[in-house]
């Protein structure tokens, strides 16, 4: 059997795909029913923010094939930057979100300077080392970050559009605000992935050697995608600071950096653009549902993670796509439905 390249599918040329519209519509209804199924609106906020973070992370892991295991640093730096900007620069939502994006991007660029000539396990080690440095700095700089106590009293600044201003203090209002940011970021990342730049990065993932001999400055591409990913992770971190009304160092730990890796792999980030989002849903809902039954929920999620890595390395999104393809009767529909839902690039 032969397969066609993902970029030949028409979704690759779209700015907004049918899958995005379906996802946004479904997400827009969440506040209407989430309380009735025994969950709570704040979980919706968490899911959106972590989805944004995981999608940004997957630019590095999935699109570029670079194992970054210290990404929590940039998420955390975004959160601190948001809070510190609010306290010291300007208590304006837009300014502080830009600060979260920019400061995390700067930190990412700084790290990228040191790691972009590496790959594989060495790359992974370096990202861990830098992640640990940032985490330690966050804990030790008590005067700036509040250390282990965290940076408290961060406000959910109102969203000021000139003509109208939305107060985001309420969880439902804030949920919709995060949904809009998420939607815009998804459009940007989808386009980025399918742009010439995104295709070059995907090519570098497959062969740095060939790409270099075709005239691509491999280092610059690796450094820039890492920086972009860090910046968007920082934006998610800024939103997280708003959600929590505080910024804490724990999201920067190696431990929590591992969460985003697990989410992305379990969901199928290596084969699908949407994989990370699937993973975040599964992870956070498992945390709340299994977590309500047993304190050892992480044990069960860990087992799921191992099972997936062993038997379904393409993750849930990939497994669902493959399952659909097995039944030839529904195969054609299944294919397009799955492409619609997951944009699955069948990479295996």
């Amino acid at each position: 059997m032969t397969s066609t390249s993902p970029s030949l599918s028409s979704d690759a040329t779209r700015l907004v795909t049918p899958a995005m519209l379906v996802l946004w519509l479904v997400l827009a209804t969440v506040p209407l029913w989430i309380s009735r199924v025994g969950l709570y609106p704040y979980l919706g906020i968490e899911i959106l923010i972590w989805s944004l973070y995981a999608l940004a992370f997957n630019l590095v892991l999935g699109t570029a094939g670079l194992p970054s295991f210290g990404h929590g640093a940039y998420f955390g730096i975004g959160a601190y930057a948001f809070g510190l900007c609010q306290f010291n620069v300007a208590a304006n939502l837009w300014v502080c979100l830009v600060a979260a994006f920019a400061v995390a991007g700067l930190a990412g660029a700084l790290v990228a300077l040191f790691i972009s000539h590496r790959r594989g396990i060495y790359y992974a080690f370096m990202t861990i080392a830098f992640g640990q440095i940032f985490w330690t700095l966050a804990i030790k700089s008590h005067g700036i970050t509040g250390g282990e106590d965290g940076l408290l009293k961060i406000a959910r600044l109102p969203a000021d559009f000139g003509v109208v201003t939305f107060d985001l203090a309420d969880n439902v209002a804030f949920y919709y605000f995060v949904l809009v940011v998420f939607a815009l970021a998804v459009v940007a990342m989808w386009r980025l992935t399918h742009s010439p730049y995104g295709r070059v990065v995907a090519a570098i993932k497959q062969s740095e050697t060939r790409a270099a001999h075709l005239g691509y400055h491999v280092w610059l591409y690796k450094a820039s995608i890492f920086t972009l990913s860090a910046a968007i992770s920082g934006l998610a971190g800024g939103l997280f600071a708003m959600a929590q009304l505080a910024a804490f160092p724990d999201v920067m730990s190696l431990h929590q950096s591992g969460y985003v890796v697990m989410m992305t792999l379990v969901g199928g980030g290596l084969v699908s653009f949407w994989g990370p989002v699937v993973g975040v849903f599964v992870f956070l809902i498992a945390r709340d549902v299994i977590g309500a039954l047993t304190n050892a929920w992480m044990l069960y999620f860990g087992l799921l993670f191992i099972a997936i890595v062993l038997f379904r390395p393409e993750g849930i999104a990939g497994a669902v796509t493959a399952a659909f393809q097995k039944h030839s009767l529904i195969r054609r529909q299944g294919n397009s439905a799955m492409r619609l839902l997951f944009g699955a690039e069948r990479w295996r």
Partner: protein
Amino acid sequence: MALIEAAGIHVRFGDRVVLESIDLAVPEGEFHGLMGPNGAGKTTFFNVLTGRVKPGRGSIRLGGKDVTGFSPHRIAAHGVARSFQIMTLFDEFSARENVTVGLPAFRARGFDMRHAAANDSGFAESAMAVLATVGLADKAAVRARDLPYGDRRALEIAVALAQSPRVLCLDEPTSGLGSDGVQRLAALVGRLKGKLTIVAIEHDMEFLFALADRISVIHWGQVVARGTPHELQQNEWVRRSNLGRFA
């Protein structure tokens, strides 16, 4: 003036000297063959030519410009393309996309993050034209990893051709091909000959002696013989090593 001029290229890995001192001048439009026993350092020499390995001594000039020590992407931007002995394709990409990434026009837009790559019909047309030259037009949509071996070899060359290079370096292009494939390749190289400068490492003497304008034999890190196929047949070293028996 020669298009490529390598002078006194010396390469060592640790304390193992692989290239002692290689000189090579290839005028524009020439098809220059490189041969020599396994491990002679032919691929290493290509790696020096294309910026992958920095020579300990010696210099590389391209069209008179000193490019010694340039990194691979800069050498490529100077119009040097190469194929690889061990196939180096973008396995998950379709044949067409493999070639697309090689196009200079695509490279020029390599930092374009705002437009969809697949929306550009110009890329598609150029890529299809390149695929047609190597006989892969009808397999444009097939993923590189799903192509049969001979087609992968052809794609390996197509990706290099996509660069519209001034110099094309082919590292054992016939390796693993059946006689059909070798004939197809000979026809392709025959068509390219004269249009661009080609340096080809090759073990298939029949192929090389039929097509090359000149051939250099590399052994013990040096060029031990050089000349037209006809001259090489007279060369004592070549005769002794029985390399010229096919011509």
